[in-house]
């Protein structure tokens, strides 16, 4: 079966938190540096927050992969909503012991265990999607961080209705807050080009003009997840034309028609 080069290109834009697909941007590099510096400070909790698709998980993932060999660091990429499971996971990560299925971790016992380790060890936990944790569990996280043995880096979705940072336990304990924002036009251009160049698609990267970037930015508002989704559909359409109607596409310039078709498909513009 005939295969199009666009099949491979579209896969670049599949939304993942794979460190290999991480694109170093000016803004993300700055935020990452702040985060790394914060880890060396005697902070109990570090908050990473921003709208969905601004790259919070990506930064957390990158941090984990960069520090996993030099520090005692653990990454919970999916939220553990059960308190029992959460405490079990914390204890297993710290003690490197497997707890049998029919047993549970006593929170007081865990606190005592942490207090015994004070001054000897510093364990770091990276918790993604913390807005899903319950108040009670957040309170336990706070108590664990008070032992100064466990340090938490948490990510939160910035929501308009609920100002999570205003909550008491965050107000008093979070000493470092890093806000991630959507990319501007220049950052988005670098992001798309770097993504394509990393995989060696120089020609396709050159096809995208500043005007196209502006159109993409107008549709996605510079959100990385939305941009990935948009470009995935764009190259999906390209793949179709390349396979069945190659006379309809130009390999030197990104088609405005296809960009608009993708925007219609996602619902950025209405037909």
């Amino acid at each position, binding site marked *: 079966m005939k295969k199009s080069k666009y099949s491979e290109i579209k896969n670049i834009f599949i939304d993942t938190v794979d460190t290999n697909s991480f694109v170093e941007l000016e803004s993300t590099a700055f935020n990452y540096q702040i985060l790394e510096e914060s880890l060396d400070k005697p902070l109990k909790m570090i908050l990473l927050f921003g709208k969905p698709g601004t790259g919070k998980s990506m930064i957390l993932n990158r941090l984990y992969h960069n520090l996993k060999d030099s520090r005692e660091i653990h990454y919970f990429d999916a939220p553990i909503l059960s308190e029992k499971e959460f405490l079990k996971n914390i204890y297993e990560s710290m003690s490197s012991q497997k707890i049998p299925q029919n047993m549970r971790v006593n929170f007081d016992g865990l606190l005592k265990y942490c207090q015994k380790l004070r001054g000897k060890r510093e364990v770091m936990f990276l918790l993604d999607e913390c807005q899903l944790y319950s108040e009670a569990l957040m309170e336990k996280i706070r108590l664990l961080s008070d032992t100064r043995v466990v340090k938490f880096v948490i990510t939160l979705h910035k929501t308009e209705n609920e100002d999570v940072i205003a909550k008491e336990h965050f107000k008093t304990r979070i000493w470092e807050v890093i806000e991630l924002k959507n990319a501007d036009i220049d950052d988005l251009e670098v992001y798309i080009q770097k993504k394509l160049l990393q995989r060696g698609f120089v020609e396709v990267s050159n096809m995208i003009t500043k005007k196209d970037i502006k159109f993409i930015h107008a549709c996605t508002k510079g959100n990385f997840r939305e941009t990935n989704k948009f470009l995935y*559909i764009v190259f*999906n*359409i390209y*793949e*179709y*034309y390349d396979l069945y109607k190659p006379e309809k596409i130009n390999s030197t310039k990104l088609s405005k*028609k296809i960009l*608009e*078709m993708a925007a*219609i*498909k996602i619902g950025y*513009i*209405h*037909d």
Partner: protein
Amino acid sequence: MINTKELEKRWYKYKTKGVLLVVSILAILSLLIYGGYYILYKLDLNIEKKEQPKKAVLSATRVVVKEKNISTPIEKKSIEKGDSDNSVMLSPTIPVIDLEKEKLKDIRARKRAIDYNIAKKTHHKPKKRLVKAKASTYLTASELAEVNGNRYKAKREKKKINMKLSSSNYMSVMKQKFKQNKNPREALLIAQAYYDAGNYKKAEEWALIANNLDKTSDESWLLFAKAKDKLGKRREALKILVVYYNKSKSSKVKALIDKMKSKSI
């Protein structure tokens, strides 16, 4: 894979909508521009229409001079129009100067000046002689009375008769003079003389003649209106003055309008 055919159809629909939107915006814009132009054009027409009655009044006066009948149907119509809408009559008019008439006026003025100088020279010399002769050869009235006894009174009466004669002579001389040079000034003087003598019909006629020769002369308009007023046509006189005032903005005319209005009130 995405249903690209379906998506393409949706894209065509989207584009058609876009084109229609642009076309409708352009149509609205052109409609607005055309509408604006049309309104302005209409306004211009209205202004012209407003000016037309004034022209009718002015042209009516010309007809009147020829036929010696002021209340022609055209004038009547224009006056009736004025009756219904005084504001139209009082609306500002654009003064237009006829350059050919202006030239003609200049030539006439120069001619008049020359005539006047000649007349001055010819008139003054005999006067001087007369005075000199009087001093040496003739007696004064009192001297003569002394010589002839009580004949002084009779002589005075005779003098009165002479005065009357000279007045009628003045009219015939002025008319003769007007026939020769068609000077509006002469016509105006005749009109004034008739007015002073109480012959308002004649005064009106001569004021119109003067006015026909020189439309810019305030005196001819004023005298014409005054004569009409005396003939009991105050309303008509007022309307004519208002039309002229709109054009000339003369303070004298305004004063007369106010005076007439206050009288009629």
